């Protein structure tokens, strides 16, 4: 069958099929992205924390913008070449377009991967710390900085994985598994760690699934060694007995209700009601009806409380039995004791796997699969090998809402109080902000009142030490041979730049983040109880990153989808070009329209996420 209007336009709309279809689709896309952008506005104006302003590196975003604009131009050139029946020219322009898409996604991938490896923590006093968590290394290696540190091989856990120093360590004396919910990989990991430590995990007491005097069901002997198979066998036996018990319980309950109903005291008739309340017979009929209904409902409820499961009897295998007689023993838990070997047996648990709130000195913790560990806490500190961001903005916001002096609040925060190096850095930063204030006054002067400066440092300037600031102060510490010797007089700012004192970012640093091998940063060990929440820079960290990843991720999918369609015309369009070039031109135009739309979304996404 011939499809009408693939090349020639329809008379009433003046458009061919694909044109009208793509515009319908683009209209729906406008609504999709419009909804997401209004979601962004909603999150931003409703945020209960300082919104991260201008927080993404501009250069990669800028290059990506140029790339998308270039590809928009080349895709329209490719279409024009087709219209003029220049196949080779079409191929060249289309190839550039697809290549642009690939480069765009490459930069996007780099940008994402930097975020996925960058750690943030919100402390209990709302100070934000950013940086890189180190892998666990042999004792002593952590003192090394920069290039030397990266040469030391990290310790690997039993499964060969490097361990980030952001785990809760726990030395269990016993492990209580919830057999219905066991998570196999964790048991395997536990077993592997136990093997390394030379520890033995054995069943604490017999688990017998038989009724007294019977032997048909499995018995698990105390002292059996923990294995996945053993736990699965226990779970299977447990489920078996539970299913049997549930079935019989229902039967006996049904019987118990029957018995209760048959009992003379359970008469729900009106006669019984009137026998109990003889003077109510004189009520008006509808009043009486209501009182009767209420009495019935109340009596039924009391009956339910009286139903006695234990007392009911049923015929089973030719004799009368009670629920107790048929009930099989259940054991939803299996407790294993730990006998330590030559090395301490310590489990490294991810924070999100532990559901017990962290406190120092816990002797019992529960994991997400219901496993309960009893024993002793190990060192659970969070160790930043490089701190490349300390942000007081949220703390200041909270202090101000309580009417407190923000500077006093910062001075009393754990990070400033307990870490002299950070305290010194904060002192230098305040000196730097002073210089910035003076520089702004020098160039912009005062308002008409002669007192209020025309321009003042932003909240971010004042209360956030980003990686460039921290690298600057740490460099001073290094040159002075220690933070103790540094003083506010060492701080200088570049006039006319209007930023706090900071190092200049190198080109590569704009893409990959700070160069840890050559710059100095500070090292920080944060006791777990100081950490309120921690996360990589992923959607979990805050609503800014959530909406950033949602919109840019969806946009990235559009780039990939568009590139696939355009690549199809490039590589598979030849035969169509030979048979019906105008049809191919129409299709390329439609593919191009989608591609321009992808560019259009980025035109808004770039300034909104990178510059505002």
């Amino acid at each position, binding site marked *: 069958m011939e499809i009408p209007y693939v090349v020639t336009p329809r008379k009433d709309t003046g458009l061919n099929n694909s044109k*009208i279809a793509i515009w319908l689709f683009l209209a729906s896309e406008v609504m999709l992205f419009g909804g997401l952008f209004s979601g962004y506005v909603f999150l931003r104006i409703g945020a209960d924390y300082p919104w991260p302003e201008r927080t993404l590196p501009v250069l990669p975003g800028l290059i990506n913008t140029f790339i998308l604009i270039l590809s928009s131009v080349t895709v329209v050139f490719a279409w024009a070449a087709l219209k003029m029946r220049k196949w080779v020219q079409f191929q060249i322009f289309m190839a550039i377009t697809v290549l642009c898409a690939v480069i765009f996604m490459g930069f996007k991938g780099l940008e994402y991967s930097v975020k996925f490896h960058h750690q943030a923590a919100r402390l209990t006093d709302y100070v934000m710390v950013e940086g890189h968590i180190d892998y666990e290394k042999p004792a002593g290696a952590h003192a090394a900085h920069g290039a030397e540190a990266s040469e030391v091989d990290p310790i690997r856990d039993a499964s060969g994985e490097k361990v980030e120093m952001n785990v809760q360590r726990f030395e269990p004396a016993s492990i209580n598994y919830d057999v219905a919910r066991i998570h196999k990989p964790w048991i395997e990991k536990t077993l592997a760690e136990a093997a390394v430590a030379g520890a033995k995990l054995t069943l604490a007491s017999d688990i017998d699934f038989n009724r007294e005097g019977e032997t048909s069901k499995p018995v698990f002997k105390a002292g059996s060694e923990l294995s996945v198979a053993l736990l699965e066998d226990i779970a299977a036996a447990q489920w078996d007995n539970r299913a049997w018990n549930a079935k019989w319980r229902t039967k006996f309950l049904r019987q118990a209700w029957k018995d209760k109903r048959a009992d003379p005291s359970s008469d729900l008739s009106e006669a019984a009601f009137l026998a109990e309340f003889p003077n109510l017979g004189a009520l008006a009929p509808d009043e009486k009806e209501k009182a009767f209904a209420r009495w019935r409902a109340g009596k039924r409820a009391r009956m339910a409380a009286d139903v006695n499961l234990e007392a009911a009897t049923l015929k089973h295998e030719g004799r009368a039995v009670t629920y107790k007689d048929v009930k099989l023993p259940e054991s939803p838990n299996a407790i294993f004791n730990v006998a330590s070997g030559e090395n301490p047996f310590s489990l490294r648990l991810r924070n999100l796997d532990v559901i017990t709130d962290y406190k120092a000195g816990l002797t019992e913790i529960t994991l997400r699969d219901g496993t309960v560990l009893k024993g002793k806490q190990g060192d659970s500190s969070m160790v930043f090998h490089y701190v490349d961001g300390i942000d007081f903005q949220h703390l200041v916001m909270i202090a101000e809402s309580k009417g407190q002096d923000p500077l006093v609040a910062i001075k009393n925060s754990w990070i400033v109080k307990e870490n002299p190096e950070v305290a010194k850095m904060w002192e230098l930063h305040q000196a730097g902000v002073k210089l910035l204030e003076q520089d702004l006054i020098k160039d912009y002067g005062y308002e008409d009142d002669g007192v209020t400066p025309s321009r003042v*440092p932003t909240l971010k300037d004042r209360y956030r030490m980003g990686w460039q600031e921290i690298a600057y102060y740490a460099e001073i510490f290094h040159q002075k041979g220690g933070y103790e010797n540094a003083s506010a007089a060492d701080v200088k700012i570049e006039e006319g730049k209007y930023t706090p004192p900071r190092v200049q970012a190198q080109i590569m640093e704009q893409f990959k983040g700070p160069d840890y091998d050559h710059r100095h940063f500070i090292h920080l060990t944060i006791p777990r109880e100081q950490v309120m929440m921690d996360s990589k820079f992923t959607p979990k960290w805050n609503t800014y990153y959530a909406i950033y990843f949602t919109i840019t991720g969806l946009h990235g999918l559009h780039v990939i989808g568009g590139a696939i369609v355009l690549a199809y015309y490039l590589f598979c369009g030849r035969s169509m070009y030979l048979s019906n070039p105008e049809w191919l031109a129409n299709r390329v135009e439609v593919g191009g329209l989608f591609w321009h739309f992808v560019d259009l979304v980025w035109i808004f996404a770039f*300034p909104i996420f990178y510059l505002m």
Partner: protein
Amino acid sequence: MADSAEDIKKAIRTYLIVGGILFAGTVATVLVATVPMFDIGRHGFDHWDMWLGLAIATTKASFVAMVFMHLNHEKKAVYWLFASGIIFAIAMVILIFGAKADPIEYKGFGQGDASIGTTP
């Protein structure tokens, strides 16, 4: 829409000019956001920067839609389709500001309407 080879040759010049405008617009957006000399309003980001940034973005987007997407000589049906999408998107934003102006105040569970869930 350009159909003859002549028209297309002419159109290509327009495409190049628009491409140039887009590049220039992007550079301008970055300059006003990063170079102090071009920073309008207060020091750092403020609502003036936002309006300027969005104005440039809207201008760029209009050029893309008008020239690259041929909206400058497109049929009526396309205008209707695209405009309806934009109108719905704007309506969504207005709804959000409406919701912001009329917030639901959360008073904690069970402290709202006392008559719910209790027997008279």
